[in-house]
């Protein structure tokens, strides 16, 4: 995480342009540039800026955003409820869809449902999210008669309205994530059903349904769950386009603005936060896999 943040720091210092120039735009003059630079602390040397940043970080002070003028940690926390709910809800939808379709496709291979699931995989991979967002937005406003954009209601005000205001974004993200998930579920289910022990179960007299749902499914879960861990980490920081189109104040859009405005503290804060989330997410998936889904292999290790 430290390494990631140092790389970010260097990258932002090397790329052309700085926050002072951007703040002034085409109105910049030499005098005003100096004023803004010293206001933002950009006139200090690279090493002293780096040092003072990490000194603050040790006491969990993420600094102040140069663009918004607010505390970086507050800005991140403001966005967390939305971003976390977007990520969890869309992943949940994608998970349900791909479990149902994926299992069905694996059980009835080469059938109509299998072909349908493959179409979904293809569509999910090839539909650009911005296009799908615009399409849904127009569809909702023209056909269903409700406009979602700009009507964001935060969770603390009203939970039903909050869910309504993020529903389209959840659909778009779910479509994007369900493709890879569906493919993995289908393949691991097929894999499990081709194993020798699966045949043995049936030979032993277990019904096919029982064999599929209590044995094959469990052994096939590990790959999708690890993928979901990765997807969740990605959704926490990478939904900028969808958030921008639906005018949702999420972490991805904040990050996009921070980079555009060369807002070093804010970029750093988000990078550190997201990399922390990725590490935590991997840890959680590992734990989940070992303890909940595959306790058998875990106990075998102990013996």
């Amino acid at each position, binding site marked *: 995480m430290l390494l990631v943040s140092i790389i970010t720091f260097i990258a932002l210092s090397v790329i052309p*342009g700085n926050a002072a120039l951007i703040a002034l735009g085409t109105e910049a003059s030499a005098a005003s540039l100096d*004023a803004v630079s010293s206001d933002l602390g950009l006139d200090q040397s690279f090493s002293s800026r780096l040092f003072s940043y990490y000194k603050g970080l040790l006491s969990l002070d993420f600094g102040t955003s140069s663009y918004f003028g607010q505390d970086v940690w507050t800005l991140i926390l403001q966005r967390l409820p939305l971003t976390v709910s977007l990520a969890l809800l869309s992943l949940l939808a994608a998970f349900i869809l791909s479990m149902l379709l994926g299992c069905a496709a694996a059980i009835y291979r080469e059938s109509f449902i299998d072909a349908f699931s493959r179409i979904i995989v293809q569509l999910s991979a090839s539909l650009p999210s911005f296009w799908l967002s615009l399409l849904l937005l127009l569809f909702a406003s023209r056909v269903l008669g409700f406009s979602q954009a700009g009507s964001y209601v935060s969770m603390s005000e009203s939970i039903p309205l909050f869910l309504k205001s993020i529903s389209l974004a959840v659909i778009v993200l779910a479509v994007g994530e369900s493709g890879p998930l569906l493919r993995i579920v289908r393949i691991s289910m097929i894999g499990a059903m081709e194993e020798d022990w699966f045949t043995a179960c049936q030979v032993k007299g277990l019904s096919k349904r029982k064999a599929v749902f209590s044995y094959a499914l469990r052994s096939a879960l590990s790959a999708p769950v690890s993928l979901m861990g990765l997807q969740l980490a990605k959704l926490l920081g990478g939904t900028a386009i969808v958030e921008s189109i639906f005018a949702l104040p999420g972490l991805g859009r904040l990050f996009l603005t921070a980079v555009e405005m060369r807002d070093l503290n804010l970029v750093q804060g988000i990078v550190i936060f997201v990399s922390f989330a990725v590490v935590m997410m991997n840890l959680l998936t590992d734990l989940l896999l070992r303890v909940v889904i595959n306790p058998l292999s875990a106990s075998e290790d102990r013996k």
Partner: protein
Amino acid sequence: MKRTKIFFIFLIIAALLVSCGGSEETNTSSSSAAGGVNSGEKRTTVRMAVAVDPDGLDPHMSASASTFQVTSSIYETLVSVDESGNIIPSLAEDWQISPDGLTLTFDIRDGAVFSNGNICDAAAAAASFNRLISPESYRSGDYSEIESVRALDEDTLEIKFSSLNTSALSLFAYPWSAVVDVSSADSLRTVPVGSGPFMLESWIPQQKLTLVRNPHYSGGNHIERVEFVFMPDMTSQVTALQGGSVDIIQITGDLVGQFENNDAYRILALPVNGIQLMAMNTASDGLDDIRVRQAVNYAVDKESLIDAVWYGYGEEIGSHFPVVLSEYKDENGRYPYDPDKARQLLIEAGYEDGLTLDMYLPKNYQEYVNAGLVIANQLEAAGINVNVSIVEWATWLSDIYTGRNYDLTVVGHTGRLDAYSLLSRYRSTAAENYFNYDNPEFDSLLDEYTACVDEEERKEIAFRMQDILSEDVPALYIQDPIQIYVTRGDLTGFTIFPINIFKFNEVQFI
């Protein structure tokens, strides 16, 4: 058993994560509960969609148009402007200019009070101007000719200039010259304190900024609340207006058709105080020859360019001057579209084998990128090869605008109220002169303009400067853009001004 236990632990962790974020939200947005639309009753909340957040709410510490769109409702300037740029009273009820033109005296309105209850008298205004001209302020350069600011008594503010600037009064109309409460100076960026018609209620970045009526403001005010809803995507803005979740949006020309001939909407299409141009680096090889720059002008068909990029919403210009100002002179037609003439001039200049120029376009201004591509296409038809690079805005600012390392670039400039501040960037020594334009006659006209007291004579000098620029063409002057706003049909009083301000206290629902 063990499994369910662990599952519950995960649930609890997830719930904690969500809820701690949620409570933080409550703290920062305490009273932003949706400005309810009470159908039937008279509406008192106006909601406007804007693309980006303000760059802080301290008018002295920002150079961003998005800031002034908001702060012009929170703070007051000494004087203001009407729709055609004439100076009208605001915080100052009246003003006098001394015979030598060096001293301006303003009579501050009686009973002006900041939104926190502090008195806004001449002393408070003087403190605010001293902050504006101090080196830390972003705009101190524009006010460097101010020698002293003094409060003569409670209502009288005296501002002395070190050199004659006949358009000095307009300096006090720009939104960045707003009078702020200096006792709150350190927190103005997020907690603005001014004497304007509205005050800040809440600002949740990238979501919504809410202003409410300032109880201490004595002027007229039809509405109670103004909400700026931040929506980066234009399609979202359009559907939001159609769905009724905002009242005012700004759109591009291609979308006008959706709202035409419909009483539910009102369309406002007016030229703004600004110009868009393709700058030419007059110090680079080839473009240092005036014949080549003329050839570029002959080679471009501005009408089809404006049609293609701005859907026809733009006023053609021939010089660096917005059509909305009173000193504007029509310079169109000096170099009409004539590709044959362009080719001939290139041959005369010694480029019969063709000429290659580098064009840089700022990536986040899609319209300038589009315009650049259309121009490049037209130049190629006339025998000029163009290498187009699309660069990030930050790179554009450092390499092209400041570094002057380019041949051609398309960009826009916001206007000012007088010819001098508008044209001084063409002075050979100016830091903003990214054209590398160097014409001693033009430099001396700039000096003459500031020293000239006679209004008619000054106008003549402004005309002459426009003539020179339109002859020398350090740029291809494209257009004065037309801004298009669409509002709900029952909303009146919303209009645009030659400087970047809104007057929401004049807006009302009928």
